[in-house]
């Protein structure tokens, strides 16, 4: 494979004199090329869709058709949130997607190529964050809408009328996608801080999943103060339609708290990305 024809440099046309600066627009195009040209993007996002929509459908079909709950009882439950419960697993795949987007640059050494052509490092950093957030948001909305539309049909069969015009349904279904995008953003910030794939994924899963489980072992009167501030519990309010006053934050307050976790990770990540040796 290595013995290939060799041509002289005079056969390559000179480029016109450069004009303008390497800036944010170029960085955005470049980051879009990066994310669409690796298989891990298709794998992670494809898995997130199949896993979340699939698990949600299976669980809702089972409960709608094979449980003793009466229609009157079901009408009091948050079936809209239940229709998207696969997000509990989907968020973990989004963590992998968000983390890999930046840690793969470090694990392959590609970061040095990227930063040597973009020495003003904040351009590739924010461009990458924007590209992965947009992609995670679109895929997240596909997941939450598909889950809701499929699963609400199971509940309609059981006699519970559910549609996007049900109270708070629109907020919760859009919120499902927002929450998934937020998970990817949090993992991206952790990835920028840790520069290590396994470390970023572990800490992302830890924050979203393990911390929530550990907190359930706290004494009840502590839990009332602690639980609502945990990332999963706070962010989870945005894809729910029922909130317990006192022990839950509201939908958008909760989501705001969730995004503060992400913002802190991203800001620390950005500072380190800018300062550290590549």
């Amino acid at each position: 494979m290595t013995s290939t024809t060799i041509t002289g440099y005079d056969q390559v046309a000179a480029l016109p004199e450069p004009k303008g600066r390497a800036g944010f627009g170029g960085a955005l195009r470049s980051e879009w090329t990066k994310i669409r040209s690796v298989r891990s993007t298709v794998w992670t996002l494809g898995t997130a869709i199949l896993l979340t929509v699939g698990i949600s459908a299976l669980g809702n079909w089972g409960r709608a058709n094979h449980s003793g709950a009466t229609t009157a009882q079901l009408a009091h439950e948050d079936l809209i949130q239940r229709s998207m419960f696969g997000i509990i697993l989907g968020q973990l795949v989004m963590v992998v997607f968000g983390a890999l987007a930046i840690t793969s640059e470090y694990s392959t050494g590609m970061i040095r190529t990227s930063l040597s052509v973009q020495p003003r490092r904040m351009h590739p950093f924010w461009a990458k964050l924007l590209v992965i957030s947009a992609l995670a948001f679109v895929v997240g909305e596909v997941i939450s809408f598909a889950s809701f539309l499929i699963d609400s049909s199971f509940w309609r069969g059981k006699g519970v009328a559910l549609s996007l015009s049900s109270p708070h349904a629109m907020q919760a279904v859009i919120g499902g996608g927002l929450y998934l995008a937020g998970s990817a953003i949090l993992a991206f910030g952790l990835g920028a801080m840790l520069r290590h794939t396994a470390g970023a994924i572990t800490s992302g899963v830890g924050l979203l999943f393990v911390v929530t489980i550990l907190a359930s072992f706290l004494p009840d009167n502590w839990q009332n103060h602690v639980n609502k501030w945990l990332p999963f519990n706070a962010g989870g309010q945005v894809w729910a339609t029922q909130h317990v006053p006192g022990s839950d934050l509201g939908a958008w307050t909760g989501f705001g708290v969730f995004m503060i976790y992400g913002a802190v990770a991203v800001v620390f990540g950005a500072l380190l990305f800018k300062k550290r040796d590549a």
Partner: protein
Amino acid sequence: MIEVRDLVKRYGDTTAVDHLSFTVEPGRITGFLGPNGAGKSTTMRLILGLDRPTSGSSLIDGKPYRDLPDPLRYVGALLEARAVHPGRTAFNHLLYLAQTQGVPKSRVNEVLALVGLDTVAKKRTKGFSLGMGQRLGIAAALLGDPKLLILDEPVNGLDPEGIVWIRNLMKTLAAEGRTIFVSSHLMNEMAVTADHVVVIGRGKLIADTDIEDFISQFSQHVVLVRTPQPEELTRAVTALGGEVTARSDGALMVSGAEAPKIGEAAARDGIVLHELSPQRASLEEAFMELTKADVEFHAPDGQWAVQPPGQPPTPVQDAVSGSLAAKALGGDDVR
């Protein structure tokens, strides 16, 4: 032009680059020589703004690297380690680089053809050989048609044909007035490529000189002579002003006298010669001599051992038994 001024880079207690100053001029190939671990790659990373210097500065045509408006079109860089995502195709690797500063897509195909990778452009780089990876790196460096090239060990992994090609390419680019700064740990490679050399060892500047001066300064002329009459020859050569050292196999090594003069003197005195051959101490040996004190790791008796500066080489066995002894005596890593 690249100006490096009093550059220092420390990593903890280790000083990788130690008050280094030199200038790389346009229109010629400047070789950057030093044994492995001398700080060549670190210096290049500092010039490219990838690492922050502890102190000092480096400037590209008077500007810090990060102030260049479009670095890709001004400086082309090839870094030592293959800095490529293995799952991405060669074409897409170059495309994302081109897009950062508006280099047209057609240029990606041009440079791929130039380095002979056009047939594998749509292949993932995972399957690339070392040489192909190196060619892709060179393609990336040429993508922006840069005025200045910084190449870290570009011939690494290239086949002989590829080595000749990169050598000619660098000469063509230098002749066009571009600045070429190329590192190598191989003196012989630089002797046939570079016009000027900057030599470093342990992060310090050892030499910054014209290649011709460097070669003549560091290679000595010696003549090997075999004769059944060593005493007579030694006398005759000493009379010519030469110096003779006997080798263990009986050959005489003569320095300070040219082979024709030695032959003429032998004929005049009726001394029988079995062999008379001029030896040129290899440039590689001269380079090793020059940097001997600055090499981080020596290989005494063919084994690797860490050698602190200014101490005789430590054989590996001693180092191992030394640490075993330390453990037996309750050293700090035991408990």
